């Protein structure tokens, strides 16, 4: 199953149309899409404007490949489940976002082994073919990365560092 997600803030018809074109050429593959507001409508896509958090996680877990805009929620969920994710960033010049922060996001995440970045429909199509033909991707990372461990440790220290007196004002008569 291919799970496509574009978030809920703004339409991303360019991505959904590209998926529909691929589906037309590759019948038989189940496609579920969280579409937000869109003008793209297709019998080949199980379209759901909004998907709640736990359903989203289930769909990511069930998916063979995730296709997403460069939204951190999508990418981080994909990373958490070590799923292959194909990312197409929204472009401000096409009215797909207010700014190009999604381009910055993907540039900085390009090192992730489960992530492929595409800028157009043609590349999306060929990467999708490749991903579905390939075996399961090597698990991204075992356990927690060094950077993640450092951040968690620092927060834990920050919490433990202060007094317990401050705001514990109840417990009185």
């Amino acid at each position, binding site marked *: 199953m291919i799970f496509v997600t574009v*978030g809920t803030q703004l339409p991303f018809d360019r991505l959904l149309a590209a998926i529909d074109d691929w589906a037309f050429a590759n019948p038989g593959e189940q496609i579920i899409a969280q579409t937000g507001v869109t003008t793209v409508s297709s019998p080949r896509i199980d379209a759901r404007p909004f998907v*709640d*958090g*736990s359903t989203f996680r289930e769909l990511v877990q069930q998916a063979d490949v995730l296709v997403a805009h460069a*939204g*951190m*929620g999508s*990418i*981080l*969920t994909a*990373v*958490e489940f070590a799923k292959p994710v194909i990312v197409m960033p929204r472009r401000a010049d096409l009215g797909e976002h207010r700014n190009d*922060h999604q381009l*910055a*996001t993907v*540039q*900085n*995440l390009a090192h*992730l082994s489960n992530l492929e970045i595409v800028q157009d429909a043609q590349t999306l199509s060929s990467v999708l073919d490749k991903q579905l033909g390939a075996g399961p991707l090597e698990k991204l990372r075992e356990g*927690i*990365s*060094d*950077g*993640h*461990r*450092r*951040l*968690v*440790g*620092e*927060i*834990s220290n*920050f*919490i*433990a*560092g*202060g007094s*317990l007196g*401050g*705001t*514990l*004002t*109840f*417990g*009185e*008569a």
Partner: protein
Amino acid sequence: MKRKINTAKKHRVLAVASGGGHWVQLLRLRPAFANSNVHFATVDPKAKAQVAPAPFYTFKDANRDTKLKLMLSALQIAVIVLRVRPHVVISTGAAPGYLAIRMAKLIGARTMFIDSIANANELSLSAHLAKRHADKLVTQWPSVAEKTGANFIGSVL
């Protein structure tokens, strides 16, 4: 009559984030709350199952584009802060995290704002606002730390 608090030896932590990636990133910080009495607050009621049995609160989603909603959101967050009376507030943004930190400072809590990993080139507006109020402002990118003076420690990935 005295009220017994069985968690009195632990720090009470309010972990707060708006939806989407902010919440996902907050969840990835959960190991940091292992030794504390953590309360979660976010926008999606269905997120409760992800952190159960921890105490869980919701507030209305808002961003800087919707001033009226932001005011409602602020009121709800104030109520949550007063109910939880946290020693520490940890937020992964966005605007509601900043609001929670400002309010928690008023009751003497220590606060940390962790900017989203999505802000790879500059601090978010919420992080900018939080800079003057949070005890610790954290970015997940070294380059942003160099530019802004925020702390880089690591990331949720």
